[in-house]
């Protein structure tokens, strides 16, 4: 009777597959979520700020002023809007996002080789947009110095910037591979939490625990189908990244799979822990949504860089598996990082997965004690 019986675990897994195939909610969630997330982040959400409405107040009307306007609009980030008499008022009314003021005598001073100034005003009420635009301005300023001032910058130094791993700063290359973390984090935790909580809520766990089946066989059998389902979602992300969005995959596929498996184990363990602690589907679902979504979306570096977070949150993210998985996924996809470069994320994820699994197994009850 002792020991792990693979046949019994397989039979629990087989039963679970039947539940999945016969439960429209689980099927729609498992198959629909990856598709929805890839579509949403791939097409609808773009972290690049474009089409900034620029009102230009050109009091110079000279050739250098026209050239400066062209430099702004040809950058691809700005679209000119007709500036009336009250340029600042256009910012107030939202008709423009930014304004460029060119003073009289601008062109004459440029021709004379003297230092010139043009004023750029940006609507700061949307600080993320303003921060992105201030990044663009540095490039535009350099470009203007070249094109208006001649072959060299005023300092006589030409600076050429080149971005490694994502030369065009394509935001989809950055976000789409990271969706693997969101999909595993959300699906694995949610589906596991629901399936085990359902057994408690329906009373079938009482029946199961009274049979000779061992808890480890129940757990393995119940979790295996969801692990495969979630890995299927990750495979979909991989295929979409490569063949729909053209994201390069520079690293090792076995290493990527190893990271996925480790992260899946950590997520399934969290789901198991939630279900055992709550024993109710509705409560389990609420906890799973919070624990599955928030860390992977907000504290993993998916949207906000971890390094830019206040020290407390920066350290806090270290106990969150999504942070390490996100670092690994981007490193493997774009940089071609190997195990040596990703040793820290690998060890951290290994330790966290082992700890979470041990915690969930310890919490899993073998009786009906409250």
């Amino acid at each position, binding site marked *: 009777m002792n020991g792990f019986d693979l046949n019994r675990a397989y*039979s629990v897994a087989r039963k679970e597959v039947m539940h999945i195939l016969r439960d429209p909610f689980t099927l729609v969630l498992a198959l629909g979520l990856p598709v929805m997330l890839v579509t949403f982040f791939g097409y609808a959400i773009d972290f690049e700020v474009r089409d900034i409405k620029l009102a230009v107040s050109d009091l110079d009307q000279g050739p250098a002023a026209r050239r400066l306007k062209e430099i702004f609009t040809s950058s691809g980030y700005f679209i000119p809007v007709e500036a009336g008499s009250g340029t600042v008022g256009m910012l107030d009314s939202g008709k423009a996002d930014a304004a460029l003021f060119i003073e009289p005598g601008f062109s004459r001073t440029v021709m004379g080789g003297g230092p010139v100034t043009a004023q750029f005003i940006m609507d700061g009420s949307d600080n993320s947009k303003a921060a992105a635009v201030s990044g663009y301005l540095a490039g535009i300023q350099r470009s203007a110095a070249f094109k208006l001032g001649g072959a060299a910058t005023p300092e006589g130094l030409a600076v050429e910037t080149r971005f490694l791993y994502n030369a065009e700063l394509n935001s989809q290359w950055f976000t789409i591979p990271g969706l693997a973390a969101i999909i595993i984090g959300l699906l694995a935790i949610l589906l596991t939490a629901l399936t085990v909580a359902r057994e408690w809520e329906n*009373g079938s766990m009482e029946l199961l625990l009274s049979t000779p089946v061992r808890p480890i066989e129940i757990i393995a059998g119940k979790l295996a189908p969801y692990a495969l389902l979630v890995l299927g979602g990750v495979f979909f992300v991989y295929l979409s990244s490569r063949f729909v969005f053209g994201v390069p995959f520079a690293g090792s596929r076995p290493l990527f799979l190893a990271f996925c498996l480790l992260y899946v184990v950590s997520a399934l363990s969290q789901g198991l822990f939630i279900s055992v602690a709550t024993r109710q589907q509705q409560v389990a679902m609420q906890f799973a949504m919070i624990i599955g979504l928030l860390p992977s979306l907000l504290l993993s570096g998916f949207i906000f860089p971890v390094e830019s977070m206040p020290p407390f949150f920066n350290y806090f993210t270290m106990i969150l598996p999504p942070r390490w998985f996100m670092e690994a996924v981007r490193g493997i996809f774009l940089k071609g990082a190997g195990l040596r470069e990703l040793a820290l994320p690998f060890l951290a994820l290994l330790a966290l997965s082992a700890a979470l699994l041990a915690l969930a197994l310890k919490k899993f009850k073998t009786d009906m004690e409250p």
Partner: protein
Amino acid sequence: MNSFSIKTENLSKSFGAVKALKGVSFDFSEGLLHGLIGSNGAGKTTAMRLLAGLLRPSSGSITYFKDGKAADFAEFRPGLAYMPQQASLYPDLSIEEHLEFFRALYRLDAETYARRSAGLLEITRLGKFLKRRAGQLSGGMYKKLGLMCALLQSPSALLLDEPTNGVDPISRREFWELLYGLAADRVLVIVSTAYMDEAERCARVHLLDDGTLLASGEPRAVLEEAGAAGFEEIFIRRGKGAER
């Protein structure tokens, strides 16, 4: 088949401030059909779960006997089957899928499974509904399926927590006939029920009220000793006594 019996001594179980069972001593002797009789909240389910090893006693003890000798629960457990009170089957699985699932849990070989399942399907008369899902079965059929899953392992002791609750009278009669058959085969059967008329169907009754044992013994002897015409009267008297 081994002969199983169970005895408890001052068995108590508390859930926080609630005392569900207050020092009860049962003697479930082998090969008989025992009835654990009591109204809702009497402590029947708690007692059943304690006997099935699903709860730990707060105090007191449970001793399991196998062939007359005290045995560890681990030794006793393979011969023990339990059917919980609440609906515990999978509504989206068919009768056949349930039997296949429990066959794997009990590790039955193909021949044993074929023989036992055929026998159980015959006595429960569920053979023609093999493909029907549990969620689509009537109350009586559902309970019979639960019983079949428990009996698939051919247990020596069977614990049934309110198996006839919500079942129509004809199905209840059929169900009891199944239990008589098991008791005749020397299986220790313990059935909890809130239906007083079912007490008379048992070889031994154990009357539980508010976590305490009111009486134990053969049904007729218990009634004679209490000077009551029926079991209901014993509980009603007890209730009136408590009110005074």
